[in-house]
């Protein structure tokens, strides 16, 4: 079973690498951000698999932290860099 878990984790790692192509190509900033969000979910799955494969239940806590913070980057992106009115904002900084 350990080899099976590890093999699946490896497979997910490979899909993550494939997703890098979307960051390279874009075309829009949002497309790149979507890839990052998919990576977050993939990392959660990889960590859950590794928790079994490496017999370290603590890895579920790492996975929990990823799941908790999965939205931070996307929310920051939408609110700060990509809001529709980003071009006519006040500038008092």
């Amino acid at each position, binding site marked *: *079973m350990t080899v*099976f*878990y590890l093999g*699946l984790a490896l*497979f*997910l790692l490979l*899909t*993550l690498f*494939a*997703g890098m*192509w*979307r960051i390279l190509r874009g075309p*829009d900033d*949002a*497309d790149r*951000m*979507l*890839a990052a*969000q*998919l990576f*977050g*979910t*993939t990392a*959660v*799955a990889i960590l*859950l*698999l590794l*928790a*079994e494969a490496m017999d370290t*239940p603590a890895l*579920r806590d790492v*996975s*929990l932290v990823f*799941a*908790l913070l*999965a*939205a931070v980057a*996307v*929310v920051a992106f*939408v609110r700060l860099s*990509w*809001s*529709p009115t980003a071009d006519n904002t006040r500038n008092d900084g």
Partner: protein
Amino acid sequence: MVSQAVTIVLLLAGAGFFLAGTLGLLRFPDVYTRLHSLTKADNVGLGLMAAGLAVQAESWAAIGKIALIWLLVLLASATGAHLVARSALRKGIKPWTL
């Protein structure tokens, strides 16, 4: 042995959804369709994998933690997808049509 078989089937099915989600992210034509494919990996792919691993979990607490992780990812991906799609519409990005 039955539980192992169940785990293997669920994990393989989940991995299939991750593969499909990644392929969709790479191949679909615009941001809305890519959102669609990506949230399948988040929701169904991770859900199946979490279910498969929960079968093997050592305690009810561990099962609860795995379920919580899945629910949190669901919440994050639904909110993220909504925010990105809404901003894209407001920015005037036209949904892809044939």
